[in-house]
């Protein structure tokens, strides 16, 4: 028996209100109805210009690419930790702790450290010098500010791994031993059990966390501003640049870019809730 009061939904809407307000204001600003330089009349010029600007879509697609690759790497690593170290032994416990230890390290710290390690004269370049691979900093292949986004991908994957590992480890621990025993009794090899019994359950349990980390990677400003190239500029950096643009007309572009980021975030939330509703019961 439960109450049918509208209060809980109203409270949830209240929590979302700042985002909804931001969406409304941004939409009005892009259409020239409010904000700096607004005429008060509906004007599609800026919105059209923004949506047909190649810079916008290069920034969006580059941010999507970096978020996808970094999340895929972190997911593979987290699944690896969960599958390789599932037991109650001391070694497995240490491995699980090592994987989850950097959990609360801020993105900014991860990005700054990546810069110290992967920069042109960073620690990796020095190690390669001593290994005889390179003879000067200029010979080091660019790993930061590079178009492939190697440094940013490494920093984001490192930052995402602990969270995904926590979820993956918990999911692995929650996979019923009975299921594994039943498969083994029917003659399945350990590898087959891992592939056909443990992995499908682990993957479904991990998916909401994977989507959440994808959203964070997509929207991470501080990592992008320290490690990403100038061209293509990732979406968060592009948005901040437009916010600070001396031209008031271009500032409304920042709201348009923020709207695009919010649409991507909202789509991911929808997928997140769908997967929770669809698969939540299966992994309990």
């Amino acid at each position, binding site marked *: 028996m*439960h109450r049918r009061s509208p*209060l*809980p*939904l109203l*409270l*949830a*809407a*209240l*929590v*979302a209100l*700042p*985002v909804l307000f931001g969406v409304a204001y*941004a939409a009005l600003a892009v259409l020239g109805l409010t904000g700096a330089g607004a005429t008060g009349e509906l004007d599609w010029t800026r919105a059209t210009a923004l949506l047909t600007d190649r810079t916008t879509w290069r920034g969006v697609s580059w941010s999507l690419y970096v978020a996808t690759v970094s999340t895929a790497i972190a997911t593979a690593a987290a699944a*690896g930790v969960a599958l*390789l*170290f599932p037991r109650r*032994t001391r*070694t497995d*416990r240490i*491995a699980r702790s*090592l994987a989850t*230890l*950097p*959990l*609360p*390290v*801020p993105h*900014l*710290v991860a*990005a*700054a*450290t990546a810069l*110290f*390690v992967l920069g042109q*004269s960073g*620690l990796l370049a020095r*190690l390669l010098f*001593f290994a005889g691979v390179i003879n000067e*900093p200029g010979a080091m292949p660019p790993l930061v500010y590079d178009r492939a986004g190697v440094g940013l991908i490494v920093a984001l994957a490192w930052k995402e791994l602990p969270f995904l590992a*926590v979820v993956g480890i*918990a999911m692995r621990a929650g996979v019923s031993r009975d299921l594994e025993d039943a498969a*083994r009794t029917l003659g399945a090899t*350990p*590898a087959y059990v891992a592939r056909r019994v443990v992995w499908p359950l682990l993957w479904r349990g991990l998916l909401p966390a994977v989507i*959440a980390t994808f*959203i964070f990677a997509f*929207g991470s*400003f*501080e990592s992008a501003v*320290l490690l990403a190239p100038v061209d293509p500029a990732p979406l968060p950096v592009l*948005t*901040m640049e437009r*916010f600070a643009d001396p031209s008031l007309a271009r500032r409304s572009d*920042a709201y348009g870019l*923020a709207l695009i*980021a919010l649409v991507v*975030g909202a789509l991911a939330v929808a997928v*997140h809730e769908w997967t*929770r*509703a669809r698969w939540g019961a299966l992994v309990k």
Partner: protein
Amino acid sequence: MTSTRLSSDTRASRGSQPWRAIAMVLLTISTFGPFVILVVQSTSESWRWPSLLPDALTLAAWRGVLGGTIGRAAFMSTLLALATAITAVCVAMPIGRSLAQLRGASRHVAAALVFLPVAAPPIALGAGLQIATLWLGVGGTAAGVWLAHSVPAIGYVALFFLGVFSARSDSDSDAARSHGATRWQTWRFVLLPSLRGPIAEALAIAFLISWAQVALTLVVGGGAVRALPIEVLSLVRAGQDREAAVGALLLIVPAVAALAALRVGVRRTDALPG
């Protein structure tokens, strides 16, 4: 059957041994490497190419923390994070409890709504919050940044308490209410005492959300609110690596303390085996 299974287990375990060893080495390097690098960087007097270690060590950057820009920024961040944590827990705990009473589709809708400020990219969230704080007359001030930090923190903590209250039975508070306790008395004498652990964890979560905010602080604070992450970002971009490393390590300190709290919480909920 048992002996067949044991030998099969052993074979499988042996088969994965090289992978386990490689994974262990990589995990050790990736976990401790960055902290060691930051500590060395923060104490290096000069570190010329191609030396693997600094030519000389100094504690000058650490001595400059107190009374310097990093110290002031750390103090500002601490105030902001404490205010955000208290605000988020006070607002989000009753919301989480209320949402836990929902069932079916409305529960998913409510969870999605609460998840929005968490999922919205900070810079996109900041676009609306900047205008809201300007309207409230607190744009570019610490109060405005505190309000802005509270928005995602309330989302996170409401989701956290949604989980906490979903896993709890309402029987204690129902019993108190049936014995004549008011809503306030039920909260004060029944719910709050039994929620000390989750409240501490929620405070830690909200504190860390504020502590690590960069984009929201920049957009809403307009560069005038010099919190620690903003100072560290400026130092890294200016190439002041030693001071930046000191600031980065200071950013980790409360994070490590919160991790300890999280570990306690995780152990209590048996999320980690063993």
